[in-house]
């Protein structure tokens, strides 16, 4: 039971970070549920059908999803805002449809036999990704990502290639989602395409956004709370989705920038939105 909590919270933390990495460069991705599915299936085939060790299979699945992410992202990241978001929705929907049509991995019945994920795999993954993101936050790269997110045009006139930066982040996010998906599948033993629908992608984005995307600690907080809340309101049974929805709305009302939005709150307190002279 305890192990369930650790594994699911940990995997959701990594998923939230996979969205955060993409958000760092200013794009919102609803494709991460799709990338997670790619990770689950690619690593599952590798371990079950080819006997590849789990960690190796997870890495390979991550690389595969990252490559697909870059391929899809290249045309998509040239579009902006809502169009990019729609493309990422399309990714998730198509990944699911493609998996459903491949008999080799069981079609809509799903694919089984994946074993081997322990809570230590997940704890180690969370620790490693966390350390990586912490190192990033202390490196010059953080400022470059901030610049691209704030104003691509301005960044470009300083010699930064915004498309390149966004593309690498998109690929990195796809990689993380797929590695998380690999461990997820090898914990559940059996996965089916239905588990990776668009709702999952929306939830992953919510983890990050509710926690706050101004620093790397927001997404894990959001993921942990969102994973555990449904457990606590379980007694309400049929009211569970409603209670869950109300809690999300409440969080968005009370902390519109996320639970851990230090930076933008300070920024607003200092009045940064009102200095432009008439």
């Amino acid at each position, binding site marked *: 039971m305890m192990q369930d909590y650790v594994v699911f919270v940990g995997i959701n933390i990594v998923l939230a970070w996979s969205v955060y990495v993409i958000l760092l460069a200013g794009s919102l991705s609803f494709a991460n549920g799709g990338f997670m599915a790619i990770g689950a299936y690619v690593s599952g085939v590798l371990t079950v059908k080819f006997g590849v060790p789990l960690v190796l299979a997870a890495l390979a699945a991550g690389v595969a999803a990252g490559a697909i992410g870059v391929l899809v992202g290249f045309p998509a990241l040239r579009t902006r805002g809502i169009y990019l978001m729609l493309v990422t929705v399309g990714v998730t929907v198509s990944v699911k449809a493609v998996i459903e049509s491949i008999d080799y991995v069981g079609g809509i019945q799903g694919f089984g036999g994946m074993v081997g994920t322990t809570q230590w795999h997940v704890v180690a993954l969370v620790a490693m990704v966390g350390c990586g993101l912490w190192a990033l936050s202390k490196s*010059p790269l953080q400022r470059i990502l901030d610049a691209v997110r*704030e104003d691509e045009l301005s960044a470009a006139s300083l010699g930064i290639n915004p498309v390149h930066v966004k593309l690498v982040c998109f690929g990195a996010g796809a990689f993380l989602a797929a590695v998380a998906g690999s461990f997820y599948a090898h914990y559940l033993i059996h996965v089916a395409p239905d588990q990776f629908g668009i709702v999952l992608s929306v939830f992953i984005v919510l983890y990050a956004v509710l926690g706050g995307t101004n620093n790397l600690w927001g997404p894990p907080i959001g993921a942990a709370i969102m994973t555990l809340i449904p457990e606590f309101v379980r007694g309400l049974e049929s009211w569970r989705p409603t209670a869950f929805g109300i809690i999300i709305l409440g969080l968005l009302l009370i902390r519109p920038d996320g639970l851990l939005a230090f930076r933008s709150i300070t920024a607003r307190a*200092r*009045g940064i939105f009102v200095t432009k002279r008439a």
Partner: protein
Amino acid sequence: MDMAAQPILAVDGLRKSFRGLTALESVSLEVRRGEILGLMGPNGAGKSVFINVITGLYPSDGGAIRYCGRDVTALPSYVLARLGIARTYQNIRLLRRMTVLENVLVAIKDHASQPFRSLFVRNRSGGVAAAMALLEQFHLADKADRLAGTLAYGEARRLEIARALAGKPSLLFLDEPAAGMNERETEELAATIRTSHRLVEAIVIVEHDVAMMRGLSDRLVVMDSGRKIAEGNPADVLTQPNVVEAYLGTDGADD
């Protein structure tokens, strides 16, 4: 051809139109090493479009741009920035939610051109000293930790210029740097521009302020309706009848 004689920027027959509306009609000019070139003209003359095409914001419809002897006509803005062409914007574009220091740090060339390598460099504070020195020169060192969005107008202008210089460019474009400034602020700005001039090979300023342009520019180019109508030393150009008619006669009144 020896290096000193070769212009840093040579623009030949540059054309640009928007939905059939001609903004630039075959504009040719040279920017020489060591000079401050003033670019003047009434509103809609095409000065800003000219800068925006040169710095890669808009593609040109024809003509050639050579920078240090190299054809750079179709290059995107980030490549031009890496080659040493920096600019500021008419409506200041700072990274408002980042600090003053961060605005300068982000422009440091090694990081800006290879962002993901910067994740692995050991010497992470290397740029701070240089950035602070630059802020010092522009009298912004005491505001290094403020958010850029909280700066006063004149300070924001100075920061934008300092940031443009952080990438060690050779050629600097300033798009209406004195817009919305009073006389005292304009004088301070002129001092800032002279400071900048020591750090780059050439500066091109687009500006309305006649007094400032007369004082700062080594040469003046005047544009009207997308064409160059005069070029030469400021004193001569500003007394040319067609310049007086096209520019000073109409636009000088409302300044």
